[in-house]
């Protein structure tokens, strides 16, 4: 705890020590039994791998708990007054129907009524236009303290957009993407009405499947109209009862749900912690299933490329080494990394310069970098054939609406440079530059920033729920749209704001954002960081003109 107060903290560049930057108290603790592996590995990637997770300052943590305590206390007082008939009962509350068991659990309902409702104005802000570098927020007002909102379509606030997942800036309402989507809408309509196995495959889907496979550098790919469903509906075809899923503790809800639907045993390992993963793997192979000690049928490691709440990048080379050593399979969810990472925009695999064939299941979505919707799974021909025949998606759910598919085709073609321009390369480099520049500047201003230096997701720690609301409101008022996330989506003391960078942002945009953040940051006192300013910079990234 003394160390905590002094701000002594392990945020140092990695050089050989695998878990160097994680401190013991911040949830990424070092695991006791580190097993020396026998194979020699190329450790070159570690030189350029820099991530930081500065721990919560003690004082901030204490105040955060006091904050939540106060909100809960007031909530109870309000409930008490409500029961005594002193407050006007809101109609949105669950009525008591005699004989029926209440639909919602007490705590869940309490949290919604007294905690979430207070900050409900910073979430679900309605957008009235394209979510590009700047977006139009439709003003809404509430007359009943956050229970209901009323849109006022006449008042539009244009803000700088650092909330949307628009990494490569393909969310556009003009240009080649829009033109092609418009053409396809005219030719194909907006619906397909059939699943793959029930006459739902259009020529455009086949074209998309092939292009995605080419882009990823794998043998084949299958596309799904919803990113969430890509995980939740395909994972059950891969593993089943008697198999083991090793899942990163911070995996996305769709992966968690997908894993649960498989019926396999699920174990989690610490976030991006290779010792923890290796220990789990080793135990699993040596001891087999609990109680019976029969060997597992197969082991599936499930990780994400870039973690959308932490901004961390998966240590893929190390995972591939472990996966080979222990003969496990690897499921890589590139929802936030495909397009956004790597010199050619082909995700974390490209970022680390690895062979995509080393990964058994390459999954990703089209929502983020491609400005569309849906997801894909890429891999060996054998895998994709199996999915085409047995996946829940290919039997029960309709195929992708044609304009949505076309948007992916157009944007992917541009990224690959197949359109004959260097537009794709330009966007990739711009995004890289933006990430470094923005991150460096935030670090310099003394905020606690999580994640990898190259990650386009930049979380800034706010700690207190009151600051969460204030930060969002003040930023939007000054013209910067940000996402703020608190409990239960994050641990209770790790409330944060999250910026998503885009290739559509210019240097001027980022400077403007930094100015606003600095202003608001000083207003609500966010300079918590006690670690030295890291040494990385954007200078070695060449922009394409």
């Amino acid at each position, binding site marked *: 705890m003394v160390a905590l107060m002094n701000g002594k903290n392990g945020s140092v560049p990695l050089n050989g020590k695998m878990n160097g930057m994680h401190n013991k108290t911040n949830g990424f603790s070092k695991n006791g039994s580190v097993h020396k592996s026998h194979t020699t590995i190329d450790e070159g990637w570690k030189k350029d791998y820099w991530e930081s997770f500065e721990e919560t300052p003690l004082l901030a943590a204490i105040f955060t708990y006091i904050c939540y305590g106060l909100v809960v206390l007031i909530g109870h007082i309000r409930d008490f007054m409500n029961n005594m008939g002193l407050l006007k009962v809101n109609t949105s509350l669950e009525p008591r129907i005699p004989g029926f068991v209440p639909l919602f659990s007490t705590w869940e309902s309490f949290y919604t009524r007294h905690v979430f409702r207070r900050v409900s104005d910073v979430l679900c802000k309605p957008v009235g236009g394209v979510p590009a570098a700047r977006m139009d927020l439709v003003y809404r007002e509430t007359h009943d303290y956050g229970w209901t909102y009323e849109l006022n379509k006449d008042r539009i606030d244009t803000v700088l957009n650092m*909330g949307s997942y628009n990494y490569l800036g393909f969310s556009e309402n003009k240009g080649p993407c829009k033109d092609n989507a418009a053409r396809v809408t005219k030719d194909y309509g907006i619906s397909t009405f059939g699943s793959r196995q029930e*006459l739902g495959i259009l020529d455009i889907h086949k074209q998309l499947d092939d292009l995605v496979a080419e882009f990823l550098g794998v043998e084949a790919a299958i596309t799904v109209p919803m990113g969430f469903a890509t995980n939740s509906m395909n994972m059950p075809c891969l593993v089943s009862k008697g198999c083991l899923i090793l899942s990163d503790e911070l995996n996305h809800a769709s992966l968690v749900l997908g894993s649960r639907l498989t019926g396999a045993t699920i174990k989690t390992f610490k976030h991006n912690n290779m010792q923890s993963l290796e220990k789990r793997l080793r135990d699993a192979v040596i001891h087999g299933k609990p109680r019976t000690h029969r060997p597992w049928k197969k082991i599936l490691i499930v990780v994400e490329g870039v973690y959308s709440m932490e901004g961390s990048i998966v240590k893929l080379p190390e995972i591939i080494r472990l996966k080979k050593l222990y003969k496990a399979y690897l499921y890589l969810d590139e929802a936030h990394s495909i397009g956004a990472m790597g010199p050619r925009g082909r995700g974390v695999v490209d970022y680390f310069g690895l062979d995509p064939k080393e990964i058994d299941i390459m999954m990703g979505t089209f929502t983020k970098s491609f400005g569309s919707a849906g997801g894909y799974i890429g891999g060996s021909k054998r895998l994709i*054939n199996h999915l085409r025949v047995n996946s829940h998606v290919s039997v029960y759910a309709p195929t992708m609406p044609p304009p949505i598919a076309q948007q992916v085709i157009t944007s992917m073609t541009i990224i690959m440079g197949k359109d004959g321009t260097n537009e794709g390369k330009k966007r990739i480099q711009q995004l890289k530059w933006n990430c470094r520049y923005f991150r460096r500047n935030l670090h310099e201003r003394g905020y606690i920033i999580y994640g990898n230096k190259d990650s386009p997701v930049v979380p800034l720690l706010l700690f207190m729920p009151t600051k969460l609301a204030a930060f969002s409101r003040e930023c939007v008022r000054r013209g910067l749209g940000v996402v703020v996330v608190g409990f239960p989506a994050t641990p209770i003391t790790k409330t944060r704001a999250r910026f998503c960078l885009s290739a559509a942002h210019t240097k001027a945009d980022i400077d403007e954002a930094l100015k606003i953040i600095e202003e608001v940051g000083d207003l609500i006192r966010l300079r918590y960081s006690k670690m030295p300013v890291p040494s990385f910079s954007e200078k070695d990234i060449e922009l394409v003109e």
Partner: protein
Amino acid sequence: MMAIIPATWDMYDMLQAVIQAPTYHLIFEALLIILIVKLVFSKAYAPDKTILTEKEKDELIEEWKPEPLVPDTPDDHPLLRSMENNIITGRPDKIMTINGKSVINMASMNFLGMLGDESIEVAAQKALSKYGVGSCGPRGFYGTMDVHLELEDRLAKFMQAEEAILYSYGFATIASAIPAYSKRGDVIFVDEGVCFAIQKGLVASRSVIKYFKHNDMADLERLCLEQQKEDKKLPKKAKVTRRFLVVEGLYAKHGDICPLPKLVELKWKYKLRIFIEESFSFGVLGDNGRGVTEHFNIKLDEVDLVAACLENAVGGAGGFCCGKKYIVDHQRLSGLGYCFSASLPPMLASGAIQSLNIIENDQSLFSRLHQKSEKIHKELSKIEGMRVMGDKVAPIKHLSLAEPSDDRSLDNRTIEKITQEASQAFGALAILILLWECLNFAMERGLALTPARYLEHEEHQLPPPSIRIAVNVKLTEDEIAKCMDIIADSCHAVLGKS
């Protein structure tokens, strides 16, 4: 000292007792003591806790051979071939081009002919030039466009509900809605014939699932009574156990309608919360297309939640749930597919709004659809050797063999006919192959049909293999007559060969 003396006296008595005791007794006592000592010092029963050496561990790792990730699916698997060979060019409208051949489409569930409608495209194009294609975020994080709110509003108004919530994918709608309310320990009564999306929602909820026989109200009541008995035994548990009833308005797998009045009666009698999945009845049943509640003239208030997808009648994408505000709003924080997925592309939401405009303005749309469905039902029933499943007003018809299980000669003949790898892939599903032959026959004559596909090993209850025929309201009398002839011919040609 005074306290110790009686104790010493006791000791003396004991010593005397030992000396005077018979030998066999002493031996017996000694044995008992030895036994106790042994029990105390013996290890507790535990499975062998051998500690392996590092070398042994490495050997174990070396030895372990996992199963392959997926079983091998040959490139010429009949399903793969069928998918490769049936690729649609252009829009899958009433008349579509498949493999360069123009055919009438009775496979797509384009019940209201919305795909062919130009005003929907215009609306979508307009939204496209305003919003672009994707929404680039989940609803909570700048993924809420004003068109989403408008569509939710319009859907709620159309269904005469307090509130509606929009999902970006039809399958995810009910599959997310069920686990949002029903948790571990809760009880869900479900019809056996529910669709796969509901089944997945049930698994995700981890609740106690009680299936009743398809549309059998007596069986449901039996289960309710059983539950009531159980509740009486454990009143404390019963107080916190929520009870749900999940049914479909129009069953996708059977084509029949749920007996809603009876279900509502049972709901009040046994205090169940009733969820209806209306993917196939929304925009289909009722005079205004409001679904099964309108069909039976039951107020939506009697039902707790209605979920439907916008992928069938409406001709867009996504799905929605509607009901009372306090019920629906809960999903905004607990519906996994809502919170953690990017929102519906705005242009599709705009298209859906325009569809609703059409539905609301065209008074006779639904009576025409019902009339055509009835006509087709009548025509299909005439085909010899085939059976039409489902309600006559339903726009999906399942056409299956009249008595597939009894006709052994038919099965044997079919199995002989199909190639070896196909029989390996399907085994007992020879009937499906037979139906496929019908489909190919029909396709050659200009009618596209599809088998109703299921994952045979994952479905809770598998309906008999069938050809699924979808009625499009825009089909003309002539086209219907032509299609019916083709279907009859194909069935006769394939069945008649025996």
